[in-house]
C-alpha cells in the first residue's frame, strides 16, 4: 500500500475536498480513521479486513491463464477473476472495508448511493455480514429498471430509499445521500461506491481495492517469473481500475490501460446536455464534481452532462481524481470501447472462456480484441464482475444489433416471449 501521499488530499491538481461545510468534520474524522486503521492497522483493522475478505469474500481470487484468448491473440492473457468475489464483482472489497471501518469508528448506521445497484448490493451484503443497519439511496427510475438488485438489497435486510427528485438516477441519488449524510454525520458513515468523492475517499477506496493488484502481481510473478507487459481494466468511477493498477504503478515498464465506455459515439449534444458515452478520461475536462476536482463530462457552462453506456456501471460523468492525474502524467493510457465492441467482447469471452462477464468488464476485453497488436506479451485483464445482472440488457441490445457472434436466441422466442 502506498502511504507516501496519505495526508495530501490532492493528486496533482485533482482531488481535494469540495463538500458542504457540514460534512467537513465527518470527512476529517474519516481521514483520521483512514490513517489510523487503514494505514497504521490500529486495533488490527487491516488484519480483520483481510481475514474477512478471505473468508467471507473468497479472496484471493485466481489469476487464470486464458487458453483460448491467448491463442487467439498470440499473446499470454491472464484473467484476474474478481467476478468470483462474493456478490459477483470487485465492489465488495470496498464495501466490506468501509462498513468495517464504520464499525471501528463507532458509527451505528450505513448509508450508500447506488445507480445500477452493484455497489448497493455489495454494501447491503457487507452491512448484513457485519450487522449494521443500512439504507441505500436509489433513484426511482433506477429502482424500476434494476428490480433484481433492489430485491437483493432488500433481502439482505437493507432499506432502499427511493429518490424521486429530478430524473431519479445515480446523480440524484448521490446528492440525496450526501444531504442525508450531512444531517446524520455523527452516527452515520456514507459508503461511497468508487474512487471518487472528497478526500480521503479516493485513496481509501483505492487502498481497499489494491488487494487486486497486490495479489495479481504476486500471482503473475509466481506463474511466469516476470511482471506483465500490460494491465487492462475498465473504468467507470475507476475503483476496479485503481485496484488493478495500484501495485503496478511503481513498475514503470508495466503499461496500464483504463478502458472507458465509448457508448454510441464520442461526440456530445451540448444542447441537450447529453454525452452518448462516458469516456471521461478521453474526452472530459477538468472540473469539480461530487466533492473532488477531476475530469468531467460537462457542457461549456460547467453543467454536468448525462452520460450514456450500454453498461450501467460505467455510466458516470466523472472519474476518480487519481486516475485523472495518472492520465495527465502519462502513466495510465485512457482508451475507450464503444457499445458494439463491448457486446461482441461479452459474447466472445462467454463462448471462448466460459466466463460471462459484466458488461463493464466486457469493455476491457473489447479493447484487447481491437488493440492486441499494440499490447505486449503478457497481459493481465481485470475481470471486474460477472454478467448475470446484465442478461436482460444483453438480450435486448444484441437483438437490436444482429451481431455475428451472438448465439441464436430463437429458442427463447419459440417458447414464448422475448425477454427473460
Amino acid at each position, binding site marked *: 500500500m502506498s502511504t507516501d501521499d496519505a495526508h495530501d*488530499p490532492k493528486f496533482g491538481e485533482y482531488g*481535494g*475536498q*469540495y*463538500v*458542504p*461545510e*457540514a460534512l*467537513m*468534520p*465527518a470527512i*476529517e474524522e474519516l481521514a483520521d480513521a483512514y490513517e489510523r486503521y487503514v494505514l497504521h492497522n490500529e486495533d488490527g483493522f487491516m488484519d480483520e479486513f483481510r481475514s474477512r475478505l478471505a473468508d467471507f469474500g473468497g479472496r484471493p481470487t485466481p489469476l487464470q491463464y486464458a487458453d483460448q484468448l491467448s491463442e487467439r491473440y498470440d499473446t499470454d492473457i491472464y484473467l484476474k477473476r474478481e467476478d468470483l468475489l462474493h456478490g459477483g464483482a470487485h465492489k465488495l472489497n470496498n464495501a466490506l472495508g468501509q462498513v468495517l471501518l464504520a464499525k471501528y469508528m463507532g458509527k451505528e448506521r450505513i448509508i450508500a448511493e447506488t445507480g445500477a445497484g452493484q455497489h448497493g448490493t455489495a454494501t447491503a451484503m457487507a452491512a448484513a455480514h457485519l450487522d449494521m443497519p443500512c439504507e441505500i439511496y436509489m433513484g426511482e427510475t433506477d429502482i424500476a429498471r434494476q428490480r433484481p438488485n433492489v430485491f437483493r438489497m432488500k433481502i439482505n435486510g437493507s432499506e432502499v430509499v427511493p429518490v424521486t*427528485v*429530478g430524473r431519479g438516477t445515480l*446523480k*440524484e441519488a*448521490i*446528492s*440525496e445521500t*450526501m*444531504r442525508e449524510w*450531512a*444531517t*446524520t*454525520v*455523527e452516527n452515520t458513515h456514507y459508503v461511497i461506491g468508487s474512487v471518487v468523492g472528497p478526500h480521503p475517499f479516493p485513496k481509501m477506496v483505492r487502498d481497499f481495492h489494491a488487494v487486486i493488484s497486490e495479489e495479481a502481481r504476486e500471482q503473475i510473478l509466481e506463474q511466469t517469473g516476470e511482471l506483465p507487459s500490460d494491465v487492462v481494466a475498465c473504468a467507470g468511477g475507476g475503483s476496479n481500475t485503481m485496484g488493478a493498477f495500484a501495485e503496478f504503478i511503481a513498475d514503470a515498464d508495466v503499461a496500464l490501460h483504463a478502458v472507458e465506455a465509448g457508448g454510441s459515439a464520442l461526440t456530445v449534444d451540448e444542447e441537450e*446536455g447529453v454525452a452518448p458515452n462516458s469516456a471521461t478520461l478521453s474526452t472530459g475536462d477538468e*472540473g*469539480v*464534481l*461530487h*466533492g473532488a476536482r477531476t475530469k*468531467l463530462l*460537462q457542457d*461549456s*457552462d*460547467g*453543467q*454536468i452532462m448525462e452520460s450514456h453506456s450500454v453498461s450501467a456501471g460505467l455510466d458516470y460523468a466523472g472519474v476518480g481524481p487519481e486516475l485523472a492525474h495518472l492520465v495527465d502524467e502519462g502513466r495510465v493510457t485512457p482508451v475507450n470501447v464503444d457499445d458494439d465492441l463491448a457486446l461482441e467482447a461479452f459474447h466472445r469471452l462467454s463462448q471462448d472462456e466460459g466466463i460471462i462477464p459484466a458488461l463493464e468488464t466486457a469493455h476491457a476485453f473489447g479493447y484487447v480484441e481491437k488493440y492486441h497488436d499494440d499490447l505486449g506479451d503478457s497481459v493481465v485483464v481485470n475481470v471486474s464482475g460477472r454478467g448475470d445482472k446484465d442478461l436482460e440488457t444483453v438480450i435486448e441490445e444484441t437483438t437490436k444489433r444482429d451481431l455475428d457472434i451472438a448465439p441464436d436466441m430463437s429458442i427463447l422466442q419459440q417458447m414464448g416471449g422475448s425477454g427473460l
Partner: protein
Amino acid sequence: MGLEAAFTDEPAFVPYLAAGDPNYEDSLAYVEALAEGGADAIELGLPFSEPIAEGTTIQNAIVRALESGMTVERYFDFVSELDVNVPLVCMTYYNLIYQYGSSEGPRDFVARSAEVGIDGFVVPDLPAEEAGPLREACDEFGLDLVFIVAPTTTPERLERMREHVSGYVYVQARLGVTGARDDVDDATEESLTRIADWDVPKAVGFGIKTGEHAERIVSAGADGVIVGSALVDIVAEGYEDGDPTDEIAARLEALARELKQGALRGAQERPQPERT
C-alpha cells in the same frame, strides 16, 4: 455596495430564490417581490446540475430552473435586468464558477459578476481550504465571499474560515432540515457564541419559516436571517396549482414582510444589543 452594509442599523432579512424558477420572467417578478417585502440582501441561486448541498425543495427548484433554460449567461442577464435596490449574493457551486470564461480559474466569473452588479458569493461546496483563488479574485474586484459555519465545524476550521470570510458569515442553524424549535435555538446560540468576536455580521439560516421563528433567531443574537425553502415552497406550490404570477409574487412579498418584521421584533428583545 458591500454586503456588510445590509446588516447595518437593523437585523437583516436575506431571502433565497433560484434564478429562473420556474422560468425567467416569473422569477424576475418573484425576486423583485422579495425586495418589495423588505429584503436587505438577496441570495440568488445560479442553478447547478448537481446541487449536493440542497434539500429536496431547493433541488426541485433548480431542476425547474434548468429545464426552463437557465444558463450561466442568462443568469448574468437576469441579474442585469433585475430591478432591486439591495445587495445580491450569487449562490452556486464551484464548477460553474471555475469553468466560466476563457482562462482557467474563477477570475472570469468574478469579473463578469462584478460587471452585472453582484456583490458576493456563497459557494456551498467550496470550503476555506480550496477557496484561495476565488478569494483572490473577489479581492481584486471588491466582492465578498461568504462562508457557512456548521454546528459541527471544528475550532481549527473556524480559524481558517475567519481568514477568508467577508460580507457576512452564514450560520447553519442545525444539521437536520426540520425539527423542534428549541434545538435550533440552542444550536444557534452556541454557534453564535463561538464566533461572537468575528468582525463580520452573522446571518442564521436553515429551516427558518415564519416571522416568529425569525424573531427568536435574532433575539438569540443573530444579525440576520436567511430564508430559502419556505419561499421556494410558495413558488413551487403556485407553479403546481397554476396560480397567476402576481398572486404568487404577492404571497412571497407577504411572507417576506412577516419575516422581516419578526427579525425586527427579535432585535428589540435582545438582552444586550451588540450592534446599533
